[in-house]
């Protein structure tokens, strides 16, 4: 029931966007790793008003069994939006849109994973959109790949992702909700650094071939930056856990935490000296 808030211009006379960003500027991004204790790995991302949680369970036994792959683990991605994450209440049942996005996210992440190490098992990636304000599939990929790393799933690389769009003929990085709705197109993409091969590529709207290539170029460059932010978030989560901090944590029946401690030993020893 929010009023129709279509802005007159998505880009003002100074060349700035509705939220004051430059065309090639990301919204503020905050990523946190290890935010959900029940999961084997987890991460959250806030990108502007978009807020998403991702959790990874596995590798674990796969049900139903008919999905079993004999040569690798099955990567099951479930992208869901909370009913209250959008202006009108979303119906609780999974929509076709959610199913499609789950699939493209799985395809974006899979090439980064050594799934062949876990034949017949499943790696579950659950993504919950808490607040949707544009760019949720890209933000989901950023968070999910951090959650996979947090779960200790062997990976070639983290998978950064951003969307590029267009409004009034200008290419824009990281579309907000209004730009997505009223702009002239949207190109979400994800890459595998450092070769920057593309694992997610979708598009809607109207673009010439030149525009498309330029937009993809712009996205790939932004992904490199996003990749740095991801690595930073991952380091933050592990470097800060020194033995003194751990003592305060409630260490009852939390097996993940034991794993974390082991991976951390080298670094915390260094800092002690």
């Amino acid at each position, binding site marked *: *029931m929010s009023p129709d808030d279509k802005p007159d211009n998505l880009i003002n006379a100074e060349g700035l966007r509705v939220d004051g960003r430059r065309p090639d500027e990301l919204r503020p991004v905050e990523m946190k790793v290890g935010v*959900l204790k029940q999961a084997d790995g987890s991460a959250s991302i806030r990108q502007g008003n978009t*807020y998403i949680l991702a959790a990874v369970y596995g590798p674990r036994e796969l*049900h139903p069994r008919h999905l079993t792959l004999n040569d690798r683990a099955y990567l099951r991605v479930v992208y869901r939006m909370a*009913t*209250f994450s959008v202006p009108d209440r979303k119906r609780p049942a999974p929509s076709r849109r959610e199913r499609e996005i789950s699939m493209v996210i799985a395809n974006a992440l899979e090439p980064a994973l050594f799934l062949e190490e876990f034949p017949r098992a499943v790696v579950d990636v659950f993504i919950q959109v808490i607040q949707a*304000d544009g760019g949720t599939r890209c933000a989901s990929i950023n968070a999910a790949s951090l959650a996979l790393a947090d779960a200790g799933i062997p990976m070639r690389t983290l998978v950064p992702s951003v969307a590029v769009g267009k409004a009034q003929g200008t290419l824009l990085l990281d579309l907000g909700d209004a730009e997505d709705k009223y702009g002239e197109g949207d190109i979400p993409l994800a890459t595998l650094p450092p070769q920057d091969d593309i694992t997610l590529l979708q598009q809607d709207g109207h673009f010439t071939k030149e525009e498309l290539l330029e937009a993809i170029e712009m996205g790939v460059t932004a992904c490199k930056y996003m990749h740095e932010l991801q690595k930073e978030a991952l380091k933050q989560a592990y470097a800060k856990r020194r033995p003194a901090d751990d003592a305060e944590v409630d260490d009852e*029946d939390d097996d*993940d935490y034991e794993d974390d401690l082991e991976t951390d030993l080298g670094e915390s020893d260094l800092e002690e000296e």
Partner: protein
Amino acid sequence: MGDYSAETISHIDRDYIADLLKRGERVDGRKFDMYRPLEIELNPVAAKAEGSAIVRLGGTTVIAGVKVLVGEPYSDNPNEGVVMVTAELAPIASPLFELGPPRENAIELARVVDRGVRESETIDVKQLCIEEGKRVYMVFADVYTLEYDGNLIDASSMAVNAALLTTEYDEMKVEDKDVVATGKKLKLPVQNMAIEHTVSKIGDHIVIDPVLKEEFVQDCRLTMAIDDSEKFTALQKGGGSGPMPMSQIDEAMDIALARSKEIRKAIRDAVASGSE
């Protein structure tokens, strides 16, 4: 990796918990009548939901979001708005939760929390009427479980109440048969608050706010919604078929009554400090 994917618990754990209780202790060191630390985060979905809250009860985390829409009233209550609570045991929250349509336990959670809100007449639904018989406000409070370490009912009940208290929505009016926003923001007409308090019966013992391990070994649980006037507005015996003697129900009620005031106060205080 904390895998409880089969809902089983070893005899060792079972005996360990039982032995502790015999000595007056619990797995996490709490007293029988104590809640875990409660944390309330207000308006995490400020940009899209009319009201929202995250509640952390020890290792259990839930988020509740409120949407206020305009819809048609039920024909038997043409001048009353609609309040509805739903809950989802999202698989993100626990290795125990599976994908797929809601099962019995998710439906029970939603219905029990819904009953607490509805039976206590938390919201004055008569004030949610825009045009009798035609248009009323519909208040949806939806709960998603984020981390499951026992006692989802109480955490969900607290989150729903906190979210309802923070809710601000657009006032609507009828203009030439269309519903338009007046530009004014309204608070929900909250006139009462009932929070659910759940105890586990484990053998001869009654413990409030069970953790997951205690839920595994419980004979059953008893959930009691207690409102501002210290009246019971809803009960639910569930979480197992173990029978409960009258004396234990009496004891459970006393424990719940002893805690209910401070929990309601904690929620109101959090909301008051959040709106300053």
